[in-house]
């Protein structure tokens, strides 16, 4: 082991005396520092902004005056998804899914973007996240540093001298590998800093440390591939060319292909498209605003029988509220069915995309990174489901107020005059039915179990690439 350490030390000596290497390392360090600082700052801002907006939306709802209950159904509410602390490193799907939803009766609205402040952050530079750098740029740095690790010795003749000192190919590979490993360890420092920072913001230590571990594995895969190429190939230029091609293939070509392939294999309509498909079915359910709609005749008969009444005017409850509540439940079932179908297809696409990790570790680390950071598609889907539950509960709670607290006759007469309109209102105290909503990340155990498959694929990659290094190193002679 001591000879491996010595070989690694001398590799560092070479790097530290090379202007090209120092320049490349400085560029990467500046990029990492800048993106980490900017992304962390933005995430902290957005976290507090969205929480403030959530609280403000609740206060605005509670502070509404006496109103007709159905007006509150349409007054609506907002649900915000604050970025989890690790979004400072991995913004994930946040940038493309929207982070807030306007919740109102009879509709499942599309998630929107909470604000446009991000556009002020140095233009497009803000979209370059630390995770992007780790996934795409750091492998390139390892290629620049390591493509000639062995070849340099072979080409300059020092390999023979090294071997003549009693060193075996495996020992040399261990030393060179240790040098790359120490570079990788140094590259992990900014991520460890971000992880510690995220823990201080409330992130689970297990999720943060698992993220650090995953990126360490990912960079080790690249380190092993780089080392293997430098042992197996015979010319420096060929090694560099092959490794750059592998990088292009794994980091750019396969992900692009995987997106197209999973979209083609599983045709998932977008939100707008599925809304249009759903509209026709929705019309069959009847108009909840019109209690006389023939679609509610059976309901009317059931309610009259339940209350042993002859006419709806004799009912002790508000028939229009009953219709609104019934209609909302029916409609929500339909909306949820379509939403679940769409989310199921999206999840299938995402799973298929992840399977391409078998031929590209960049896909696997992307998936693990988003999942552990709480910025993956599954988390967004949970946000959609939870906000839908919030929407349905508050709409139905207000409908219940409509049923129980507003006299049917007054309700029918609400448009006769201003005074009649005043009488068709319920107390503002009724708006307290709105539940408090605070979206939080999944427990770290749940995130880890979701990331397990991709993490397993990465570990298989690491074992395979290290095995190649070992086998190649055993064959080293000169």
């Amino acid at each position: 082991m001591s000879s491996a350490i010595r070989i690694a030390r001398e590799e560092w000596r070479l790097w530290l005396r090379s202007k090209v290497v120092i320049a490349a390392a400085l560029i990467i360090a500046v990029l990492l520092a800048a993106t980490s600082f900017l992304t962390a700052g933005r995430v902290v801002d957005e976290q507090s902004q969205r929480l403030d907006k959530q609280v403000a939306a609740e206060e605005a709802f509670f502070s509404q005056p006496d109103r007709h209950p159905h007006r509150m159904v349409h007054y609506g509410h907002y649900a915000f998804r604050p970025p989890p602390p690790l979004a400072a490193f991995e913004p994930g799907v946040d940038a493309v899914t929207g982070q807030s939803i306007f919740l109102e009766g009879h509709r499942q609205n599309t998630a929107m973007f909470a604000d446009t402040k991000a556009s002020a952050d140095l233009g497009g530079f803000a979209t370059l996240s630390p995770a992007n750098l780790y996934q795409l740029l750091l492998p390139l740095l390892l290629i620049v540093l390591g493509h000639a690790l062995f070849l340099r010795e072979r080409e300059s003749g020092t390999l023979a001298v090294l071997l003549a000192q009693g060193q075996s190919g495996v020992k040399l590979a261990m030393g060179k590998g240790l040098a790359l490993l120490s570079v990788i360890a140094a590259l992990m420092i900014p991520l460890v800093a971000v992880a510690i920072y995220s823990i201080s913001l409330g992130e689970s230590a297990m999720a943060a440390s698992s993220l650090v571990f995953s990126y360490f594995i990912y960079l080790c895969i690249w380190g092993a591939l780089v080392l293997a190429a430098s042992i197996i190939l015979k010319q420096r230029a060929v090694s560099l060319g092959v490794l750059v091609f592998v990088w292009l293939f794994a980091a750019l070509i396969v992900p692009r292909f995987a997106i197209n392939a999973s979209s083609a294999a599983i045709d998932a309509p977008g939100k707008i498209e599925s809304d249009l498909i759903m509209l026709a079915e929705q019309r069959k359910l009847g108009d909840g605003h019109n209690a006389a709609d023939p679609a509610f005749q059976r309901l009317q008969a059931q309610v009259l029988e339940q209350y042993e009444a002859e006419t709806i005017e004799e009912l002790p409850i508000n028939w229009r509220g009953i219709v609104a509540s019934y209609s909302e439940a029916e409609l929500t079932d339909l909306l949820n069915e379509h939403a679940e179908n769409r989310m199921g297809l999206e999840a299938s696409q995402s799973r298929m995309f992840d399977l391409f990790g078998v031929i590209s570790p960049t896909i696997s680390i992307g998936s693990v990174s988003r999942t552990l950071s709480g910025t993956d598609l599954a988390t967004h889907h949970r946000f959609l489901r939870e906000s839908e539950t919030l929407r349905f509960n508050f709409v139905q709670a207000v409908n219940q107020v409509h049923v129980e607290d507003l006299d049917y006759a007054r309700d029918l007469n609400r448009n006769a005059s201003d005074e009649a309109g005043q009488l068709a209102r319920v107390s503002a105290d009724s708006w307290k039915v709105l539940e408090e909503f605070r979206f939080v990340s999944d427990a770290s155990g749940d995130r880890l179990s979701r990331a397990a498959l991709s993490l397993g694929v990465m570990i298989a990659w690491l074992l395979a690439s290290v095995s190649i290094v070992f086998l190649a190193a055993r064959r080293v002679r000169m």
Partner: protein
Amino acid sequence: MTSPLEARSLSLIREGNDVLDGVSFTVAQGEIFALLGGNGAGKSSTLLTFLGFLEPSDGDVLVHGENVGSDIAAARSAIAYLPEAASLYGHMTAYENLDYFLDLAGKSAGRSDIDAALDRVALPDEARTRRLQSYSKGMRQKTAIALALLRETPILLLDEPTSGLDPVAIDEFHDLVTALAKGGQTILMVTHDVYGACQVADRIGLLRGGQLVGSFTAENGERIDTETVHAAFAQRQSA
């Protein structure tokens, strides 16, 4: 008594070509044996088989009576090897190079030991803390020779050791090699320098087309006759 170095019917095929064909010789302790031959004669390949870098297609190479293939590490620990190109690291100083390679060889040497070796090869003091990328070929060669000296191994393999050295340095090198042999080191050198080989070698083997085609031995304390060897060398080259 076993010879420190022995080749028995050594044959080597590389990329379909016969590089060595039934070469046999021994080198006794304290002897300087020079393998003389033109380009492509198989000289360097012979050296590399003793280090286990090349595996014989047939025959054996033995170091202290042990087949190299059965314990390459043991063979390498007994041998100091000076490659033709004096391959050392250009980004390191002479001190750093020597310290590094000695450390890898499991040999500890202090600064004074290194200085003593560099004194023996006459590397100027001022050059020792400069990086080798600023060295002439001769200075690199001297540093590589110093490494071989510092290894203090019983066997020294030298591949074209005087290549790139000026005449004065060549004479100094010959004196050094002779002194090492007198101290008991076994030396196998390969060269195409007829004059140099005759200056230092106790025996010369003439290698051509992978076969040992001639042998000359110094007798009665006399040097091997340069003209005789040269004539044989030239005859064999033109044959």
